[in-house]
């Protein structure tokens, strides 16, 4: 059971945005989800160290996955951990700001596993770019 106080701390630490696609709370619908980085289905707990924020698309596509496939190195590799790993080390935005590009094996595998460039997500980002806030300047 995750207390309201813990939820609040996680939201603050995660800067109120999805740890994977950087969608901000104020621009999505409903609340960003509390994400179990190691899914409960794989033994992950409700400890603060295992919690972060994810938008509903990332959360839905991630499901109970923990490993992805890097198409470049052909390796199986752990998915990106938004709590312990730096986003900008593993991802960058395309020139038009609408698609996520994996820079590392972890990034590439995560882009595929979480379908980070699914068609609707890219269309949403295109609108956000037009509205002036995307891609975010502080990627972390």
């Amino acid at each position, binding site marked *: 059971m995750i207390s309201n106080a813990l939820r609040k701390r996680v939201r603050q630490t995660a800067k109120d945005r999805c740890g994977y696609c950087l969608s901000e709370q104020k621009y999505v619908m409903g609340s960003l*989800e509390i994400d179990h980085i190691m899914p409960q289905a794989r033994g992950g707990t409700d400890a603060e160290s295992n919690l972060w924020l994810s938008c509903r698309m990332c959360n839905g596509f991630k499901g109970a996955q923990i490993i992805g496939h890097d198409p470049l190195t052909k390796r199986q590799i752990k998915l990106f951990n938004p709590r312990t790993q730096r986003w900008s080390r593993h991802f960058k935005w395309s020139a038009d700001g609408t698609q996520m590009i994996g820079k590392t094996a972890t990034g590439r595998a995560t882009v595929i596993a979480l379908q980070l460039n699914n068609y609707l997500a890219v269309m949403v980002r295109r609108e956000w770019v037009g509205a002036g806030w995307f891609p975010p300047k502080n990627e972390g």
Partner: protein
Amino acid sequence: MSTKITVTLPDDAITRLENMAKLTGQDVDDVLATTIALSLPDLNPATYDASKIAELSDDEVLRLTKIELRTEQDRRLTELLDRQQAGKLLESERAELQTLMQTYQVGLLRKAQALHEAVKRGLMEPMGA
């Protein structure tokens, strides 16, 4: 049943299609049709408003910038996502999750379109400004 359409594609897309067609031994047409079927969600137009954003009034645009899921849908979507991540999602709940995710995704796109339109019309400051 199928319908023939003509599309204009950039060179790099043609190259990708041709490479995949050679690798899989399929016709370019079949590769393209399969790619579309696999990558585009099967939306139900009866469940959302597809009015062109540019044709809406200022009030309607601003209203759309604030849309949210209904309370019960919002609660249920969180519940089903939690159950999925916990490995407890029943087969009977998968279709419900897919439907709610579609409702969410369509709503998110409409909200984003409205935000963009509101900024274009000067109804809102550019976000992040």
